[in-house]
């Protein structure tokens, strides 16, 4: 293999990594925003992607038969996901948070994840479902158009979210609540409304992530959110959980690492560690990050209070 070929392959892998990474980043944002506000690892977040994917599965054919562009169904998916997220928060997390401990909140999150997965299985069956084509773009500069579009959507959404969080009143309130709940209550911020809004935005991002995922894989199952969610979660921890730019960086890094490790780990280690270990490598990164710098790349250190 010549150097040029090697370089092309490398760039190809990095672009693929960015595509997967932007999906991870959008999901990681949901984890991190919720964690920032209520200090809860929302295990059900991965399953919001599944909810979004199923709603795409049902609405894409409708859109096509109505003669509208298929991607418009993502609007419905965002609405469905946001509603699911808010319902989960209102029906399960909020009552538990009111009187339970941190542990019971975490268990509730796991329970909601199981609930969504099994509800989907009961309603739609366990077999994978094929979603119709949403985009079919031509190759561009030797890269698949769909891949580039996925990255573009990811970037646009991330920039939009950053602007929202930084410059709008709602975004400022969100940051204030995550900084200090009581103080922001005293400043006249309706904390419950902010929490609801955070869930809605986080889940909406998951719906967009599910669109990006489906463009690539065209498949929906009730368990699709588990592994996707776990990996995005690794990304959120890597970037510093609770930190919004951190989640974006973490997601992209995890995507690139996954793509590169799949491509290069086997030749680099002489076939001892094969690409099948790439998931183990991701979790290995998680463990190293947690041990070396639990606050992640961009997280801030907080002192321990007695």
């Amino acid at each position, binding site marked *: 293999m010549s150097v040029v070929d090697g370089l092309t392959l490398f760039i190809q892998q990095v672009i693929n990594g960015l595509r997967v990474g932007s999906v991870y980043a959008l999901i990681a944002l949901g984890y991190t925003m919720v964690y920032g506000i209520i*200090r809860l*690892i929302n295990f059900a977040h991965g399953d919001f992607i599944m909810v979004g994917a199923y709603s795409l599965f049902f609405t894409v054919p409708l859109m096509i038969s109505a003669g509208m562009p298929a991607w418009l169904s993502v609007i419905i998916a965002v609405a469905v996901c946001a509603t699911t997220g808010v319902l989960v928060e209102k029906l*399960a997390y909020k*009552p*538990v948070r009111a*009187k*339970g*401990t*941190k*542990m*019971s*909140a*975490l*268990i*509730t999150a*796991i*329970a*909601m994840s*199981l*609930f969504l*997965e*099994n*509800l989907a*299985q*009961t309603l739609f069956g366990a077999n994978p479902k094929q979603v119709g084509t949403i985009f079919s773009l031509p190759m561009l500069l030797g890269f698949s158009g769909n891949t580039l579009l996925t990255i573009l959507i990811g970037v646009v959404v991330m920039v939009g979210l950053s602007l929202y969080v930084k410059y709008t009143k709602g975004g400022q309130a969100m940051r204030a609540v995550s900084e200090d709940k009581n103080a922001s209550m005293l400043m006249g911020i309706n904390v419950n409304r902010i929490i609801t809004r955070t869930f809605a935005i986080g889940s909406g991002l998951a719906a967009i992530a599910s669109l990006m995922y489906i463009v690539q894989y065209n498949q929906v199952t009730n368990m699709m959110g*588990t592994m996707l969610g*776990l990996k995005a*979660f*690794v990304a959120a*921890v890597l970037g510093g959980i609770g930190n919004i730019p951190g989640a974006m960086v973490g997601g992209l890094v995890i995507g690139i690492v996954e793509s590169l490790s799949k491509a290069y780990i086997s030749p680099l280690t002489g076939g001892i560690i*094969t690409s*099948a*270990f790439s*998931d*183990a490598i991701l*979790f*290995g990164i*998680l*463990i190293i990050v*947690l*041990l070396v710098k*639990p606050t992640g790349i961009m997280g801030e250190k907080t002192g321990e209070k*007695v």
Partner: protein
Amino acid sequence: MNDKKNRTRSLLVSLLGVCVLGVVLLLVDSFGGMDSYIRGIFMQCCFAVIMATSLNLVMGYLGQIALGHAGFMAVGAYTSALVTKAIGLGIKAGTIAPISNVSQFFIGMLCGALVAALFGLLVGIPALRLRGDYLAIITLGFGEIIRVVIQNLPFAGGKGLANGQAGQALIGIMKMNNIYIIFAVTVVSVAIMLAFVRSKFGRAIIAIREDDIAASSAGLNVTYYKVLTFTVSAFFAGIAGAIYAHRGLGTLQYSDFTFLKSTDYVIMVVLGGMGSMTGSVITAVLLSVLPEMLRAFAQYRMLLYSVILVIMMIFRPIGLFGNYEFSLYHLLLKWFRKKPIEAEQSAAKGGA
């Protein structure tokens, strides 16, 4: 003094209770009530009980969520299966003196438990520097790593050892059909764990759960006790894994040990009550038997569990039993309304 006497008597009564259970088992078995189906469910109860109680050590007594318990079970299962396979092959080749299935199983089980404990130690030392959410995540991460590695080890698939292939199920594992041995292993495991939480170590662990900073300023080596508990917990998960591997199907699949499997046991512990061995035992048995009885509702099972779990977290976060422990001795005392020392005689009569 009296207290000590009571404790001995309580122990005797419990032993008697176990014997009664054993006799019931024997009667059911000798009247032909133990076909392979029932035996399978029984085995399932046994390893579920050990898994739930051992997870309860970490969740209930140490007060930390561990989401990778199935990983230790996998280590125990695969180690024990490979050991019994090796012994079996050795016997066939004539290099090892023939020994009974039961001794093979015990050797495999001990190896499995020890290797699982070693993994518990290796995982625990780094992981237990973290707490709460972070510990939950890191154990999840370790559990997944264990599964992925097993999935890709050449000897963990196919016929095992030399001629395996990654990604396949391990087949041809010895079948352990002696339910009395399994029952005894379960009872002894639970008894040891119960003794552990009631010992000096157990009290130290509970002190750490209540307030680790206070415990550490009282001179307890917090890290030591945390890692110790984690290792003990992993050891028993290894035993449960060994039972699982030899439960009579003869196969092991890496996909048996996913994150979902770990959450199964978390559900058992949480429903039963974190900090109640009684609760863990009862929910483990119930959640193993009920799905078999309610086959028709199988697809709604997990749906129901998750709803119950959420409702439980809202209305009774401590679980069904809280930290209550069932004691046959105290129950009998209550029934016969006698003073502790006298009650023992009537209790013995009642038990027999």
